């Protein structure tokens, strides 16, 4: 660790300036914006905008959908990635090709693959063929409230691999000796998982969950490409609301919605962070 080095500024300054100009200043400037009335004189109105937006039904719809989608996606990512990482661990050095395949979708551009998904989930497409063959009815995946299902599947498809890699890394870091010792002491497989694996990967599990949850707040591209600016009510996200208000040049509503949301994200993050530090002190 370097102390009191003048060269610090050489390293820090470009990044610092960029962060300030393009992120920090807009962030705080936005808070100011959300408290003004948007007229030419731009008078200060305090929390009036917030009071108004929390009564706005479209805002509440978007907020509800964004929350629900993320609460669907985050646990699914979490469970699938843990399950896949556990499977990969049983294969040891044979697992590399599978891991490589699982990460691949993370790098694939959404819009290029959209058409394939649209074909797969078409009313007459393969997914409905399978559904019909299994005796279930056909579903209007793309035109009804069921659109959430393809959206969640596309999201999982793209993002699960990244979490698998993080989980795998944590699992690999557990010393083999712990398990050997437990076996000598007569522990069975379940006990080993609960008493060794689980406590050892808890910090990672926390990170995977937070990342999955926060990233799930950002679900927008897929819905935008399928449903446009005004998709079905069940997938109209907060991002749609903000983009549409932005298109109407209603900056007050955009920023007010944005900071209402930011407060929620940060509160959740702070809560999870606190619960983590409490837990790691105990372990």
């Amino acid at each position, binding site marked *: *660790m370097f102390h009191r080095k003048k060269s610090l500024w050489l390293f820090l300054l470009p*990044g610092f300036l960029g962060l300030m100009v393009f992120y920090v200043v*807009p962030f705080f400037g936005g808070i100011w914006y959300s408290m003004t009335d948007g007229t030419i004189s731009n008078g200060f109105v305090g929390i009036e905008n917030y009071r108004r937006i929390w009564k706005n039904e479209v805002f509440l719809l978007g907020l509800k959908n964004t929350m629900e989608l993320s609460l669907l996606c985050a646990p699914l990512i979490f469970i699938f990635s843990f399950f896949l990482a556990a499977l990969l661990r049983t294969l040891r050095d044979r697992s590399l090709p599978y891991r*490589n395949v699982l990460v691949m979708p993370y790098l694939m551009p959404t819009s290029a693959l959209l058409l394939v998904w649209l074909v797969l989930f078409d009313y007459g497409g393969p997914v409905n063929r399978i559904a019909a063959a299994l005796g279930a009815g056909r579903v209007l995946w793309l035109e009804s409230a069921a659109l959430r299902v393809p959206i969640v599947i596309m999201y999982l498809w793209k993002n699960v691999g990244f979490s698998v890699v*993080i989980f795998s890394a944590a699992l690999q870091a557990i010393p083999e000796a712990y398990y050997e010792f437990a076996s000598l002491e007569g522990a069975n497989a379940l006990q080993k998982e609960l008493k060794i694996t689980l406590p050892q990967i808890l910090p990672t599990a926390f990170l995977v969950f937070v990342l999955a949850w926060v990233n799930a707040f950002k679900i927008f591209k897929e819905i935008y490409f399928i449903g446009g600016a005004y998709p079905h009510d069940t997938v109209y996200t907060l991002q749609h609301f903000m983009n549409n208000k932005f298109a109407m040049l209603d900056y007050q509503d955009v920023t007010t919605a944005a900071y209402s949301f930011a407060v929620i994200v940060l509160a959740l993050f702070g809560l999870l962070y606190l619960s983590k530090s409490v837990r790691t002190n105990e372990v």
Partner: protein
Amino acid sequence: MKKRRHPLRPGRALSVLLLLLVCAFVLLPIVLTFLYSFFPQSEIKSYLATRRQYGEDKWMQILLSPARVSLRQYYTVLIEKPMYLQLFVNSAKYTALILLGQALVIPMTAYALSRFRFHGRDLLFFCVLVLMLLPFQVTMAPSVITMRTLGLMDTAWAVILPMVFSPFYIFLLRQFMIGLPNELLEAGMIDGAGTWRCFIHVVVPVCRPILGAAAALSFADCWNMVEQPLIYLSKRQSAMPLSVMFNQISTDNAEIAFAGAALYILPALLIYRYFQEDILLGIQLSELK
């Protein structure tokens, strides 16, 4: 480390089977895109025209092999319709400039945040963390005002510059560098190297895997960006990257949709092939876990 080969036991056979199924599902959309890209234009056009038919007896065919393999649609995409190539070049331009800028800025910032001790360091890192968590839309409106003030609105720089300072990659590199053993830098300093030479000759080479991982992930981000150009380039359709316009093109010209998609995926696949080991290793070695 010596590679140990384990015999395949029944429990493992089940793992392999499950993983094979998952991998098949993962590869399906990519494989289908490439497969369909070799279908002649007429066949693809009539196939896609059977979408959105809601009669109970109407099904799309399961299309697996073309009547004849064709490369004509690639010619159409690349040469006959210059619009596609133009947008492809836009995407490539943005991606290249962003990655170049990130390479210059982000490792240095991460180095300062991880290997120096100074007032406000933790506060600054906290800001990076918070900014990383927020969706783009949160700072969208004030960013536009910033861009307008700087005179960058509706220019390529409005898309490029904010991405150059992307908080996520500062976070990613910082988490890696903070895990480097102190002895490594002390050894460099005993040999008389200053902070700069430590950075160039010790830290950067050691960070090779995470730099590769960050480059690959950032490439994917840029190649896939939608929100930023939609806002910052709203008045300049011709400057849009392919990621924004691709759907428009493929709806208007169904016959070339898959060939366009295949060409669009190809750079991502190549980048992925080149950096795949770095992605796994970089994340494994960093303090993410």
